[in-house]
């Protein structure tokens, strides 16, 4: 498949066939990742800037490793070490980076729309590694790829996304991707953590976790940002955990071979029971492994596209 996109801003840009192509390409790179020597020369001579204006461990490391395994030169730039701390605007930082002529910029930014802001101003590929509450397309693709590896197809499956939907870019991007690939999506969380317009989203909405878990094929827990209590959205973590934390009782209501997922980092004992995070049904570490393969596929597709 000839890749036609310059930028990856959200999964809504991709057709079902293109998502499938990402999965298949990632499958190939997953195999490379299992070899004793995990480096190939595919992107030799290419360079990518990892511009992380918001804290990140796994996404940044995952992109870095993905690039290096393809022999791509990766350069890290964090907000704390960039001129953004000196008051430089995002536009000027971006133009400075562009002047160094990289082939791509992977951006993580606290502001929704930041990736699009760069994409409209720069000629190189922009890959959104999470922008505000808006989108996290590579997370959605790696989550989809993880399930694709388990099931072979997502069609007809029911997946529950649990937790702070309102503030989650992961929930937004996963909803789009899972629907696109034929799965049904359920959301569950307290009303204060559900977006006000959620009824118009293509998902079933629950505020009762037991009801939400009935018969689902997979449960994706979302990280609860602990400051939501200070925001007045929760009374306390104990009550949240009791009513919206994933525990053994709820798992028994799901399909027998239910899969448990979490994008990390996890608050063990808050949004997920610690034992469940480590149990056989858990795909949490598979997600991390899939993340490297998926990001290798994305770097390959975007950096080698026909210009």
């Amino acid at each position, binding site marked *: 498949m000839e890749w036609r996109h310059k930028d990856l801003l959200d999964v809504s840009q991709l057709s079902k066939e293109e998502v499938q192509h990402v999965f298949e390409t990632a499958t190939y790179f997953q195999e490379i990742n299992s070899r004793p020597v995990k480096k190939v020369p595919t992107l030799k001579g290419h360079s990518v800037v990892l511009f992380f204006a918001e804290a990140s461990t796994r996404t940044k490391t995952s992109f870095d490793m993905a690039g290096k395994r393809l022999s791509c030169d990766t350069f890290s730039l964090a907000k704390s070490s960039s001129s953004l701390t000196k008051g430089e605007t995002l*536009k000027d930082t971006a133009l400075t980076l562009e002047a160094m002529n990289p082939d791509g910029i992977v951006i993580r930014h606290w502001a929704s*729309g930041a990736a699009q802001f760069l994409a409209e101003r720069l000629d190189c590929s922009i890959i959104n590694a999470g922008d*505000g509450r*808006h989108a996290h397309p590579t997370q959605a693709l790696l989550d989809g790829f993880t399930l694709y590896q388990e099931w072979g197809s997502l069609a007809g499956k029911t997946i529950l996304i649990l937790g702070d939907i309102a503030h989650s870019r992961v929930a937004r991007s996963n909803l789009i991707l899972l629907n696109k690939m034929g799965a049904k999506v359920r959301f569950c969380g307290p009303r204060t953590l559900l977006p006000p317009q959620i009824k118009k989203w293509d998902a079933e909405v629950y505020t009762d976790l037991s009801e939400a878990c009935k018969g689902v094929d997979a449960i994706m827990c979302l990280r609860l940002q602990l400051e939501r209590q200070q925001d007045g959205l929760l009374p306390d973590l104990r009550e949240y955990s009791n009513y919206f934390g994933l525990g053994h009782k709820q798992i028994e209501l799901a399909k027998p071979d239910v899969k448990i997922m979490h994008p990390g980092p996890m608050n063990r004992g808050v949004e997920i029971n610690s034992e469940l995070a480590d149990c056989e049904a858990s795909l949490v570490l598979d997600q991390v492994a899939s993340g490297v393969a998926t990001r290798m596929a994305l770097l390959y597709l975007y950096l080698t596209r026909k210009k």
Partner: protein
Amino acid sequence: MTHPELVIRKAVWKGEEVDLLVAEGKILEVKPSSDTMYEGAEIVAAKGLMLMPSLTDVHVHLREPGFEYKEDIASGLKAAVHGGFSNIMCMANTDPVNDNAVVTDEMLRKARAAFPEGGPRLFPIGALTKGLKGEELAPMHEMAEAGCAAFSNDGLPVKNSELFRRAMEYGSDTGKPVIDHCEDPYLAPAAGVNEGEVSSVLGLAAQPDVAEATQVARDLLMAEYLDMHIHLAHISCRKSVDLIAWAKKRGVKVTAETCPHYLLLTEEALHGYHSDTKVNPPLRTADDVEALLAAIKDGTIDMFATDHAPHAAHEKEVEFMQAPCGISGLDSALSLTWSLVADGKISFDDFIRMWTTAPCETFDLPLNSFKKGDPADFFLFDPAQEWVLDSASMHSKGKNTPFRGQTLKGRVISHFLSGKKIV
């Protein structure tokens, strides 16, 4: 009859070809067009052009003193006069704040200096509270005496309802209206984005329309209780319209304005995160647009205002959530609202009421209704002329408008203030 010094010949007013006669800066007569010779008078041939009374904008931000790089009084007035306006009311959120007569005096001095031979009139709006802090009343009597036409905290509405009550009471003694920017600050932690489908999809922190309507309800109840007039700024949603209609039926002394962008754009314009669409109150839904148009028709909404809010390019070209709110409106408001007339969405009579009669009567400003003795403030308008709204065609320093690059229809050909040609 006084001899005319200026005659506008064969202009169109309300579908009729008329001659407009001016003497000593005032309207002498508007009468059916003829070939009468007026010896010594300047004759302006206006065949094919529309005659319009100059517009009044009760809500602009001129940024001087303090933020002259965004706009200064001279550039703002220049944009106004090219945009068809003769009277401009400017908000108090300058630096220093216009919360005392010294600042008011200085604003008026700058306006006179910008047009020493006479030009658009500036009417400052004084702050309701010192420093716009919502803590202590500002000296409204001395500001009224210095030339303020109204009082408002605008973008920093008074949170404390008791203090707001006292501000209304104290301000009423000056005879100048109080204007409120309706926004419950506790319900509106984020500005510039409507809470709805678009904010959900874009992942933007947003404010619901009830943030506006809640404060509208407070203000209406307060105005009724105190039996005082209140003017509600830039109304943007159906809920507010319904409340105002309810209050007017009860006899509450309320007037209200809305802006061109709330009638021509919806929250859908935010797709793409272009910060020129970020405005406070935010762009709402198609249902809200429909309600506002109906409210113009039935008189619930009294007048237009631009809420002209110029910003420098570098301030807007940042992450959406970082960008300041506001649209630069003086250059384009006439053409944009004229498009509503051309499209049959509002009537010509409503257009005239919304831009001239209602604002002038509400704020006691000079009104030209083409009656003998009215100030000869008028412009000749070509409704068919197309022009592109861009940096070159805008006179405001602020180029921040979501309509930038669009071809607009209808333009001021020449503008006369007190009978003197300014444009």
